[in-house]
């Protein structure tokens, strides 16, 4: 152990109560930082997982119609250049198969599913509701969504094997009082078709569970009178965080509008971000208190140890040794506080994860959602290190500036 660390440790342990206060604040600061990050990002990640499980990472929709405008060049030259201005779209994806093939060539793409969408009326024996049908090829769609895991009643195989089978959202099924095996009528553009409930799914996103009905793509084409093409292509990615970059490339290469999930859900993501920032600010107050407590402890130790500082200086200890001794004290509190704070954070995060909390709206859960992310621990510790060390620098530098001659003469200030 270096002489400076040894001295720092003794100075610190001599002020047990003050050290305990500083340590407690640091532990609380680090622990609460971790817990709030784990909970706020827990809900955000769960929401992200839910919406990726429903809509995929990128949606390729309408074809871009380029418009060109010629403009005479200035001067005597008779050349011209074309300038893009504005964008027009042709609804839907006409060459769905070709475009899907091309999308699969992107390195980050995991799966592509062509979807035909249309508005319908659904009529059960009891009532009629407005809904949307989504014509899908189930083999493709389970690669771009969590539909297989979202089935709560019935079997996906029954849907796969039966052309007249439909997948109904749990909320819609409840409203129409339909159960697996019941039949109902879908009406669109003056034509009707009787289908049966092959299975019931639940995404947790109420708007989806209330209105989306999945049909085999052939059935949907027939009902919506759309023999070719697709309304959109749903794309899943290996790394969904890269969706904006991939979508931009796809749009450029494929000539179709491509929307990443971050843009689609920007309102909710902004809400989560605001929530995270606000909790971070609140929790930073604890870390600030920890740094003030450390400042207070060290300032007290400097005041009480001026004679010891003079002794050390008289023995050949340099100013930087004195600074180090006081920074080591902060370092010791930080090291213990960070470890204990991380343990506290992990413990409380686990406890919070056990708290029952039924939510059904933008996702479905029956308990508090937390995430276990090492970055939260690193961020909490880094915040504490920066704040406590900055607060410790002032008393440490003050101690180093003390003149030994003034101390022994009794005129040190």
């Amino acid at each position, binding site marked *: 152990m270096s002489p400076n660390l040894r001295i720092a440790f003794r100075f610190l342990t001599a002020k047990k109560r003050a050290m305990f206060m500083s340590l407690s604040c640091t532990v609380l600061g680090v622990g609460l930082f971790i817990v709030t990050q784990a909970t706020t990002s827990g809900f955000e990640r769960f929401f992200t997982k839910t919406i990726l499980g429903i809509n995929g990472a990128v949606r390729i929709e309408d074809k871009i119609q380029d418009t060109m405008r010629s403009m005479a060049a200035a001067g005597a030259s008779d050349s011209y250049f074309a300038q893009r201005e504005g964008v027009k779209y042709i609804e839907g994806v006409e060459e769905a198969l070709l475009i899907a093939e091309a999308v699969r060539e992107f390195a980050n793409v995991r799966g592509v599913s062509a979807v035909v969408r249309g508005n319908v009326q659904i009529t059960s024996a009891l009532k009629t509701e407005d809904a949307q049908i989504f014509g899908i090829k189930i083999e493709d769609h389970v690669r771009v969504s969590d539909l297989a895991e979202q089935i709560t009643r019935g079997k996906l195989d029954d849907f796969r094997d039966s052309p007249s089978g439909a997948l109904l959202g749990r909320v819609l099924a409840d409203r129409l009082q339909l159960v697996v095996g019941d039949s109902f009528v879908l009406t669109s553009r003056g034509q009707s078709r009787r289908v049966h409930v092959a299975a019931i799914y639940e995404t947790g996103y109420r708007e989806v569970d209330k209105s989306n009905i999945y049909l085999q793509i052939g059935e949907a084409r027939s009902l919506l009178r759309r023999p070719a093409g697709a309304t959109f292509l749903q794309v899943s990615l290996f790394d969904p965080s890269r969706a904006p970059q991939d979508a931009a490339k796809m749009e450029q290469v494929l000539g179709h509008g491509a929307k990443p999930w971050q843009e689609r859900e920007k309102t909710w993501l902004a809400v989560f971000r605001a929530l995270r920032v606000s909790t971070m600010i609140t929790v930073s107050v604890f870390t600030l208190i920890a740094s003030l407590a450390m400042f207070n402890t060290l300032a007290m130790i400097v005041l009480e140890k001026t004679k010891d500082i*003079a002794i050390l200086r008289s*023995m050949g200890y340099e*100013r930087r040794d004195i600074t180090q001794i006081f920074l080591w004290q902060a370092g010791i509190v930080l090291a213990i506080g960070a470890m204990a704070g991380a343990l506290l954070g992990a413990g409380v995060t686990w406890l919070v994860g056990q708290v029952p909390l039924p939510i059904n709206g933008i996702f479905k859960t029956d308990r508090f959602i937390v995430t276990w992310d090492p970055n939260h621990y690193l961020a909490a510790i880094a915040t504490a290190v920066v704040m406590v060390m900055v607060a410790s620098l002032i008393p440490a530098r003050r101690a180093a500036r003390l003149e030994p*001659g003034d101390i022994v003469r009794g005129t040190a200030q």
Partner: protein
Amino acid sequence: MSLAPSSIAGELALRCTGLHRHLGQGEGRVHVLKGVSFEARRGQVYAIVGPSGCGKSTLLYLLGLLDQPDQGQIEINGKLMSNHDDFARTAARGEHIGFVFQFHFLMLEFTALENVMMPMRKLGRLSLAAMTARAHGLLEAVGLGSKTHRLGTQLSGGEQQRVAVARALANQPAILLADEPTGNLDAKNSGVVFDLLTRLAKEQGQAIVLVTHNAEIAQRCDFTRPMRDGLFI
């Protein structure tokens, strides 16, 4: 116990010439030292005596490089130190100078042994085993061999000052400066501490400069330099 040969006795350890020092600011500024010159040789004991406020302690702190003169020069072991920066003066203090203060100034959270080892740890010239052995030897020499592991708070005033003497000698400095080393002790302990200081320092060949009000102690030194109004008389 002999800790070092005294063959270097008589060598010039310390010299100061024309030291001036002002203390305070504004109207309260006082000209404390008015051109003091002094030298000390190894193996000799010098007492600086004089009334309170005559500049004895100020001179001692200047000689110990704890303070800087406004004017004048200080040489330690023949090397001019007064014009050096804080870093060099601090290094010289650690290597060549030992201090004993009036109020013992032990670091109370540390044991007697740890206090004595502290200057050696900073200098870093000895192994841990050698430092420990030397500290034990010094504490034996000051009669505290059985109390090496006592904290400063568990020692009496006289014992603390004896530990301070051992600590001041830890790095075998050329110069030992003592500011009223017996000023806070009773007559019996004063005698013990002074005897220790002089015996050990002479054995190790140190120049001892001590500031004292104690006439009896001053008389027992090799040289006595009385001061008044910032000058030797």
